[in-house]
């Protein structure tokens, strides 16, 4: 029942959640200390080969880890000392969804500098549909996803004629066009943004009302925390399914060698467009959530520098590892918010931290791993079968 591995999975999940909590609650120094500690643990783990054991335990006992994380999210609003930190956690969740989408593109070898534009497309579509046409925010969020994905496809067709640096340059230009278009179109709110974006509501209950559980009044951010992390859970699940499927393998092979990919029967255009469309859809979903959560969106949330931050989150977390990019997004969101103490020097400090981390560990916090198919157990059986066959055929 309680094997050594299940206890290990439990322990790792609890420690991971606790570290995130400490980073969220503590000062900037504490957050950085947690980051350094996590890095140190990873390095030691890799040297001694313990990381493989931990990963295997967690993947063999997914339910335990899932339960621990769910409980952690559920009780987080009760443990946290102020609403602002809860807001940081919600933003971390929203950014995680964006980076999961961006990860599809980077995993296919396309570094997309227009993620904030897709994020913004979702946010603006959703916010404008809700404010101007009075549609339900749930519906408009889906429309936001669809419009971001459509933009991804529309934009992908000409962009995918190029590759590498040239593709990145084109995505940069899309990002710049997006920002300028928003500023110069008064119907889209122009430089003033879109105020008064309605909140989600379930029945008559708006999610912007404080949540009362067990006689305790939780701030409204708790509603959004639950909503965002449920959606994050679903998107992580989808990203993992894709990663372990034929689609994910095709994306990786395109990143490694396009000629090999195409001679194995992979339609490069189709798969690259898919990475663009799905990544944009994730960003669009996150954009919709963002608009209906903050009730105000402005163009400064969707600029080029935001796109750079998203790329940094993926690089820091670990390209092509869904858990890694979520961790990267959460850590960078926390560090970024903690750096508000530095006021004018905030971006300087932020960049310094990034440079140091990427110098020390270019592969990211949780680097990509060899796919361990669920058939891993089957392989042990297969080995036994083959050795049996070998014995029989030998004289």
């Amino acid at each position: 029942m309680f094997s050594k591995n299940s206890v290990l999975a439990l322990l790792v999940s609890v420690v991971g959640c606790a570290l995130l909590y400490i980073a969220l609650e503590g000062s900037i120094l504490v957050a950085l200390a947690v980051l350094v500690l996590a890095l140190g643990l990873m390095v030691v783990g890799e040297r001694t080969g313990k990381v493989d054991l931990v990963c295997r335990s967690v993947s063999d006992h997914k339910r335990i880890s899932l339960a621990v994380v769910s409980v952690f999210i559920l009780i987080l609003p009760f443990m946290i000392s102020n609403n602002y930190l809860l807001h940081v956690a919600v933003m971390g969740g929203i950014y995680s969804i964006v980076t999961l989408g961006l990860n599809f593109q980077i995993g296919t070898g396309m570094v997309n500098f227009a993620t904030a534009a897709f994020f913004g497309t979702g946010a603006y579509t959703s916010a404008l549909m809700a404010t101007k046409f009075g549609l339900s925010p749930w519906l408009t969020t889906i429309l936001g996803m669809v419009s971001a994905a459509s933009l991804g496809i529309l934009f992908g067709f000409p962009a995918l004629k190029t590759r590498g640096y040239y593709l990145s340059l084109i995505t940069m230009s899309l990002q710049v066009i997006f920002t300028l278009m928003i500023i110069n179109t008064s119907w889209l709110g122009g430089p003033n943004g879109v105020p008064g974006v309605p909140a989600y509501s379930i029945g008559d209950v708006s999610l912007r009302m404080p949540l009362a559980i067990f006689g305790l009044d939780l701030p409204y951010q708790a509603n959004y925390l639950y909503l965002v992390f449920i959606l994050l859970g679903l998107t992580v699940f989808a990203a993992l399914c894709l990663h372990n499927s034929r689609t994910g393998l095709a994306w990786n092979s395109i990143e490694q060698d396009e000629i090999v990919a195409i001679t194995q029967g992979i339609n490069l255009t189709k798969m690259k467009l898919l990475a663009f469309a799905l990544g944009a859809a994730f960003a669009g979903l996150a954009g919709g959530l963002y608009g209906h959560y903050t009730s105000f969106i402005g163009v400064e949330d969707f600029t080029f520098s935001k796109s750079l931050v998203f790329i940094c989150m993926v690089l820091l977390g670990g390209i092509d590892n869904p858990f890694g990019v979520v961790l990267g997004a959460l850590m960078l969101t926390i560090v970024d918010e903690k750096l508000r103490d530095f006021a004018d020097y905030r971006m300087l400090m932020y960049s310094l931290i990034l440079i140091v981390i990427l110098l020390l560990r270019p592969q990211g916090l949780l680097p990509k791993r060899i796919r361990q198919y669920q058939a891993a157990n089957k392989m042990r059986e297969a080995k036994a079968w083959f050795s049996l066959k070998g014995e029989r055929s030998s004289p």
Partner: protein
Amino acid sequence: MNVMYTEALTINFGGLKAVDAVDFNIKDEVIGLLGPNGSGKTTFLNLVSGIYKPTSGRIMFEQSDITGVGPNVVRKKGIARTFQTNRLCLDLSIIDNLLLGLYSQQTATWWQAIFQPKRCSRELSQGIDKCLEILHHFNPALVSRAYEPINAIPLIDRRRIEIARSIVGSPRLLLLDEPTAGLNAEETSQIISDIGKIRNGNQKISMIIIEHDMVVISSICHRVVVLNAGKKIADDCFDEVCKNEQVCKAYLGG
């Protein structure tokens, strides 16, 4: 019955005719493609596998015209190939590289991957079984290393994995571009016996092999086609080709 044939296949690179009006046909057999350096052998394979589009001429494969279609469509129709320099995805495991070879046979879409995971995992585990079987066929020792990245595998095994990747999807025609390049004599004979095993199995695979080692050519090829400066100069069994005046001239000069 021809598996594949070309009619007056030509490609120009600027003023250079790299392949010049080549008529070629292959039945259920192994054909050795010979010729001095720069005679257009690899270009010919690139044309057949769809990497280059011909300037003129026709390529027919199993009664359908595949002239000018993309490499991914060519692979789906049943023509697989290997490369002269090893081209495996170095960061991926052996099993992932082999699964890539099955890509054209599998059907799971991204939608099914998310919403019908059961169906996909069934397809995946069938694929894994097939890959492990092929791997065992080539080198039993590799089965236990199936989850290691290619980075950690020696050259000879990489070559085997590349050949295994090209046949795991049961192609009808296999194009091997110098499968023994860079290997020593002992490794060469191992690879050649591996290739022989493919034909001895019950799969019906026709092959075109580019090879410089005449011993290899004479031992496994039913027929030899010789190219020189893009033109076909001989097409016969090995012994006859050896006596061919034009071939001797192309190889030895004078």
